[in-house]
């Protein structure tokens, strides 16, 4: 991301504003849904789904992952695998 034309960055700025609007809207939506008092399982699924969308937007656009070098993506794929193991292993052993 070090080589940028002026036009490219101006285009980025417009994207950032759209992403901000989407994040703010999703925050309001997830809070609104929590007032519906869904069953626990469904509530967890919906809340994590919305959070994942928000997180993906931040990583893709603010952290520029969509245009990032391959090596960064490989590091993150490896991290994601270890993260899932870390998250699920104790839980699987527990239940």
């Amino acid at each position: 991301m070090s080589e940028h034309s002026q036009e490219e960055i101006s285009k980025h700025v417009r994207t950032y504003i759209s992403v901000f609007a989407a994040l703010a809207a999703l925050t309001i939506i997830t809070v609104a849904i929590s007032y519906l008092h869904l069953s626990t399982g469904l509530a967890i699924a919906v809340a994590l789904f919305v959070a994942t969308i928000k997180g993906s937007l931040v990583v893709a656009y603010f952290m520029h992952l969509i245009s990032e070098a391959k090596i960064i993506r490989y590091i993150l794929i490896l991290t994601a695998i270890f993260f899932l193991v870390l998250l699920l292993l104790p839980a699987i052993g527990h239940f």
Partner: protein
Amino acid sequence: MSALIRYISKPHPVSGVTNAKLGIWCFLASELMLFGGLFSAYIVLRGSASEWPHGSAVLNVPLATLNTLILISSSVTMVMSWASLALKNLKKFRFHLSMTILLSLAFLVIKGFEYHSKFEHHHFPSTDNFFGMYFTLTGLHAIHILGGVIVNAYLLFPGSKLYETEPEQFLGRIEAAGLYWHFVDLVWIFLFPVLYLL
């Protein structure tokens, strides 16, 4: 000193990115494991608890929603400060980075009010597993916010001198600080529903 670390302003021919960027991403990967361990602890504790309070029953959801919006805004101003610097608009860069710091401080002040009201109601980390997790996760997150404020304040004031001599390297530093800041925002995006809404 800076000559000792190579490829901090130009991409390394092997990795295709600057060493600074490779470094910050590896650091963020380790941070993900740190928070991952705590989220894992949360799943185990909640799964084994006979009773677990609904976040909204004991925590202040409107205040946390406001804090979420503040943190999202600070992420936007952070990325805007990077974009402004890339466009060589130093005035705009300073404005956006200042806004980022102010929003971060606002987040901490609101968090402080929240903690204060918890203490007033005699809710401490030792109260139960819920508050143990709540204070550990939000406390660790708040320390990360504080760290970001310190780094960003350094880059806004004394650190920005580097721009006069090594503009590319300084832009890389702002990008790295930004990556860290978006990560802190990302953690909150998951902390907020997990602690407050479920």
